[in-house]
């Protein structure tokens, strides 16, 4: 990766922390708003690693003595198969498919992503990432939900944002619009086919009143018609790609089948949990990263075959990284800044996009963040989905120019 680009990105990272964007740029942005509202057929797939994935053993600084000093037994050695990426960083040995994608120029790695005054509680930190709030503010909506609020017309149906799960995350809840959660189209469709519920769902909400009762009837009607649409559409394409036989693999397969069937959804949300590795981390994390890597390997292959990878951006995050030092149980405790991975055929910049975390400049044993995660959200919202990032995030975060 040429130095100049790295410097440029570094500068933009600095700008983000200072909110240093000239006023005239805002004006330009506003003029360009209308045409940007259409996402041009692009879609976003967010992958949430629940439990706090240890970034330092995911993107490993294998030439850094500080890393091995802090992790005498938990540090992964080069000879155990680190998949080297350049700049003295390498993927965890379990991430072979992701290494393949990296070599094809389909992966971007952002290091030391976080936010000021990080919170080490799982649920609070996940709240912060999902709502895109400051760590001392409480926001009852999610960043993708507000994207739905900002971009969906009245004709919107909840499947514009889809979560592959039984319940809906905060990330997908807006003030006016919410995403739809389902494990798979058949089961969800069945639910709405319960005879009584199906009959009730055919009742019309009275258009004008806007009462709570009408809201409930409208939500029910939208749910039923979305279930019908998803069920019928999902039959168009059945995947021939082999996926790992895990929950995560199944969710990605369902997602790929929906995308390749031509479903009109903009945002997908998939989770992989179990990263809370306080004890005997190596085996557990290796298994999970293998699951992540092979799942995403199959997923991207599936999309590529159908010609849909260039329009798809995948964003992988976790609520926090782990402490730099290993603990007494060969695990790691809750930490702060972490990696974010971007994948897709439409990435304009690939590889390692900013400096590796600085292990000599820690905050009481924790990484200091270099890049606010909301700069990534702003970039994705504006430059990828063509949405109004400031409206959705509530203020300006400097974007990473030329990234997507």
């Amino acid at each position: 990766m040429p130095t100049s680009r790295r410097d440029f990105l570094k500068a933009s990272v600095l700008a983000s922390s200072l909110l240093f964007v000239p006023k005239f740029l805002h004006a330009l942005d506003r003029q360009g708003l209308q045409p940007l509202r259409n996402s041009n057929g692009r879609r976003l797939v967010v992958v949430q690693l629940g439990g706090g994935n240890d970034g330092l053993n995911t993107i490993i600084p294998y030439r850094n003595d500080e890393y091995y000093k802090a992790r005498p037994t938990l540090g992964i050695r080069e000879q155990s198969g680190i998949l080297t990426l350049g700049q003295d960083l390498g993927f965890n040995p379990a991430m072979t498919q992701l290494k393949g994608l990296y070599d094809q120029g389909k992966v971007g790695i952002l290091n030391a992503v976080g936010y000021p005054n990080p919170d080490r509680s799982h649920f609070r930190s996940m709240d912060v990432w999902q709502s895109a709030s400051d760590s001392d503010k409480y926001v009852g909506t999610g960043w993708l939900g507000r994207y739905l609020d900002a971009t969906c017309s009245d004709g919107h149906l909840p499947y514009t944002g889809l979560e592959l799960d039984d319940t809906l995350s905060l990330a997908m809840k807006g003030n006016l619009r919410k995403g739809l959660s389902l494990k798979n189209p058949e089961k969800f469709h069945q639910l709405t086919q319960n005879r009584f519920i199906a009959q009730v769902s055919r009742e019309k909400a009275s258009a004008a009143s806007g009462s709570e009762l009408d809201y409930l009837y409208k939500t029910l009607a939208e749910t039923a018609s979305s279930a019908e649409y998803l069920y019928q559409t999902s039959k168009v394409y059945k995947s021939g790609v082999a996926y790992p036989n895990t929950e995560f693999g199944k969710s990605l397969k369902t997602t790929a089948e929906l995308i390749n069937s031509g479903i009109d959804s903009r945002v997908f949300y998939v989770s992989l949990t179990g990263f809370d590795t306080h004890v005997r981390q190596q085996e557990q994390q290796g298994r999970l990263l293998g699951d992540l890597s092979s799942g995403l390997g199959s997923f991207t292959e599936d999309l590529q075959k159908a010609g849909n990878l260039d329009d798809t951006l995948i964003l992988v995050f976790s609520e926090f990284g782990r402490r730099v030092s290993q603990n007494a149980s060969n695990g790691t405790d809750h930490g702060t800044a972490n990696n974010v991975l971007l994948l897709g055929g439409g990435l304009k910049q690939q590889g390692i996009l900013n400096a590796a975390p600085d292990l000599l400049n820690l905050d009481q044993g924790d990484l200091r963040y270099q890049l606010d995660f909301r700069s990534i959200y702003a970039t994705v919202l504006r430059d990828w989905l063509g949405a109004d990032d400031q409206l959705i995030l509530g203020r300006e975060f400097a974007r990473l120019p030329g990234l997507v």
Partner: protein
Amino acid sequence: MTSQQQLQHLYWRAGFGPRPQDVKAGSSPRKVWHQLLQNSQVFEPLTGPAPPPNEPQLVMSAAPAAGTPQSSMITTPDQTQRQGMIPAAGGAAQMQAGSVGQMRRRELTPAQRKQRNLEIRSAFYAMNTGWLNRMATSPAQLREKLTFFWHGHFACRVRQPEAALQLNNTIRRLALGKFSELLLAVSQEAAMLQFLNNQQNRKQRPNENFAREVMELFTLGRGHYTEQDVKEAARAFTGWGADAQNRFVFRAKLHDDGPKTFLGHTGNFGGEDILRIILEQPQTAEFITTKLYRFFVNDTPNPAHIKLLAQEFYKSQYNISGLLERIFLADWFYAAPNVGTRIKSPVELLAGMKRTFGVQLADDRPLVVFQKALGQTLFQPPNVAGWPGGRSWIDSSSLLYRLQLPSVLFKNAEFRVALKDDENDIAPQLSRADRTFQQSVQTTVKLAPVRELLAQTPAPQQAAQLADFVLQTPIRPDSLALVQTAAASAPDESRLRTLVTALLSLPEYQLM
């Protein structure tokens, strides 16, 4: 509006809904209000699982316990084993091995830590379902409803069940009294001091979290204090902490006793002074009144109502029952815009079904699963701001779960959901199998009072009459037709059950 509808409205808002006998007797809202108040005079603490032998009893700051603890709170071991959700947790078995309970987490071996996690989860399940059952059965409806309101207002989420239970009982004890006393007591609770980091608030390095939230979320609301006020208040709260038995302690050595200037007052303030000054601001009365109004009356506050109520609340030195009496006896409380227009929270929905129809589960644990699937779990608010409420309860999947629930409770239909990992933060890292619930639920219901309510009504009108009792908003004609068709196709012996199930499965029933 008929007087029956008025009574039902009051029972829903001041408690967890009416039972058939409550409206059959006929009365006036005024009489019912005084009855509710009377029945809520007694304070009975919620109890947790029995402590293990050879360990001190839980220290309750809420000492004056009236009545006996409910033994139904205790999860019995056989209930635990019957069901797959929680492996090897619960009751007596858990507590014999419970000696790890009081040890510091980092001193535990991995096996002990796992054991402790199981104990914690089991204790929270017992507290959760014990409270939900109490909401459904307790005569002290008003006290439990107010406890539930303050549970969302003073939202707090800690890992220690003992501390969470103690806070809950402090709130229950003071829920109907003076807000000033409630505020001080909650501010000195171990759970709150820990949750908002006041344990780390010391002279040399003030931690502002507690001071900030006390003003932003508990009393004044954002915009009525400055960042400087937060800093000064934080200094005044230095030294407030709790000991290992969850008792409030003032650690004088950690306290900054220098002069502070807070909201225009200057002095060598301590925490009590800060709370007193906050309560001197009429804005605090307005903020609390607005929040109570939004919960008990309408999500969209009426400024004229609020202004008068807040003034009287302030004048009464924050008398909570007095404020509620003004609300519940006001004519506007029974006006159409305030009746049947509020979306029930998941806990209100569940407790209401249990109360009105005497629903009991053979094993209570699914009650926690329902709460999680619907998005509101007692003792686990999402953050210190509490549950946002209103339309935020409703999305495609939560609405479908809500509409399915009556069939699960009344007709043993299967409930099926995989819960998210973050919803189990108390003890994370459950396998997917442990997070997946897929079974029918064994229940008993009491339909005799409903049958009695309908005894004088000819069969063709029964659906409409039952709708008047079950629903707080007029049933849509199309929905009534659907309910009648469903009942007509049911055999005689299950006709009433089918009627009830159908009415409860309507969007109308989501409102109160």
